[in-house]
């Protein structure tokens, strides 16, 4: 379980995250959604220790994450736009990652399912965007981590590969892993997500189970529900003109 506790982060004078608290629960897929530039990637980077918060704490199973980064042995991460050294072969990338975690048990099922074995000798430079995405996802699942962080994992994947990845995510959920996924394809998140964390302008506008979100917005599907949240925000910001804001979901968060 990952607890994000009162995180603030500004780049220069621009505030990106403004007091975020959210819990990512084991055995559940949390979908991190929000408009472009709402701070999703920044939140992921803070959890990974790639950036450091200005205030607040991040806990992994109740322990503050250590600056030396040993906790990352328990996290599998697939970045949004993966790139590897151009002149390394696929096999060399895997060999290096495995050597970095000596003694870890490995699960090569995704590697095989994606057909990466056939590309073992191929230079990363020669891989298409979709293949690089497959490589990146396979790396994230390789060490059977307790926590999976997947930033736009299906972007650029063909439907078969995307399907394989989604069933792998479901299997990981059954095993009780903590999973964080971002995506702009809401229909896809609808299939996967148990919880929604909705970010906008650096604040958590909704945090909780999908069912609760649907109930509060009175919608039956995720897409209109998110749209309703966004509309609620607009009413909120127009509230200064004296109109009573009818944003019931806005500003809710689960401690």
């Amino acid at each position, binding site marked *: 379980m990952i607890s994000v506790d009162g995180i603030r982060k500004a780049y220069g004078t621009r505030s990106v995250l403004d007091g975020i608290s959210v819990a990512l629960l084991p055995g559940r897929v949390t979908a991190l959604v929000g408009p472009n530039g709402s701070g999703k990637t920044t939140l992921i*980077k803070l959890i990974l220790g*790639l950036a450091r918060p200005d205030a607040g704490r991040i806990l992994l199973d109740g322990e503050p994450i250590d600056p030396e*980064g040993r906790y990352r042995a328990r996290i599998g991460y697939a*970045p949004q736009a*993966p*790139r*590897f*050294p151009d*002149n390394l072969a696929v096999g*060399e990338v895997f060999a290096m990652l495995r050597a970095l975690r000596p003694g870890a048990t490995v699960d090569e099922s995704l590697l095989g399912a994606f057909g990466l074995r056939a590309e073992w000798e191929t230079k990363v430079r020669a891989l298409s965007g979709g293949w690089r995405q497959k490589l990146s996802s396979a790396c994230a699942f390789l060490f059977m981590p307790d926590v999976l962080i997947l930033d736009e994992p299906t972007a650029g994947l063909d439907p078969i590969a995307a399907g394989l990845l989604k069933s792998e995510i479901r299997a990981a959920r059954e095993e009780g892993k903590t999973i964080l996924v971002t995506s702009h394809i809401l229909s896809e998140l609808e299939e996967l997500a148990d919880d929604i964390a909705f970010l906008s302008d650096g604040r958590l506008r909704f945090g909780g189970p999908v069912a609760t979100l649907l109930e509060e917005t009175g919608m039956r599907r995720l897409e209109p529900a998110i749209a309703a949240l966004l509309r609620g925000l607009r009413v909120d910001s127009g509230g200064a003109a004296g109109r009573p804001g009818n944003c019931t979901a806005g500003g809710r968060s689960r401690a």
Partner: protein
Amino acid sequence: MNPLMLVLKAGVRDLARNRWLLAYGIVLAVITEALFFFGGTGHQVVLSLLNATLLLVPLVALVFGAMHVYASREFIELLLAQPLSRAAVFTGLYLGLAIPLAGAFLAGIGLPMLIHGIRGGAPMLALTFLALGGALLTAAFAALAMAIALRTDDRLRGMAMALGAWFLFTIGYDGAVLAVVSAFGDWPLERPLLALMLGNPVDVARVLVLTSLDASALLGYTGALFRRAFGTGIGPAIALVTLTLWAVIPVVFARRRFLRRDF
């Protein structure tokens, strides 16, 4: 194998197959070969090679180094998402850049000499210092390139800063020293000038090679001062120590920036 060595190995493996680095080595080899082929005495060859080294090594280390760091941004983020300390990732990345660069330099000037021996009786000591000086300059400017590329995320600005640094250290600095000499020509300038010279790694590398060479006329103003102040025995030692310091200081800066910054 420890994490630092793994990152280093990946970097060296990647760059060993890099075409630009191969081209750099070949250009140096062609220059060396041509100088030995056409060049008169060994001294002249070493001098020409020295001039080429002092211009090319900082340029390639700065521009290629900055380019490499920008191209590696996503890979750096991937490494930092692994259970590794930042310090290990930095050291692995830095050595993974500096070692292939220095290797290309040493192979470029060394291979032609290994293949058919040193012709024209070139002075061995000066050649050794040239190789050492070039390698240390590579270490210094590769670290400076990393410090620049880690400072700004804007690639264009980073490249401009790298080129600016090259201009400053190879041309601008000497121009400024000359201006000081002509402006304060009536004053005893020996000590301040020596200090100024030690303040530029390119000058230090030049003096390191020249003091070991019997070419007083080519030492220039600061070089002659240097030799008079320290003599031929301790002079090269001081130059070598200073150049080593110059190779370490930018690494310390780049490392601090790497440990502190957000990715």
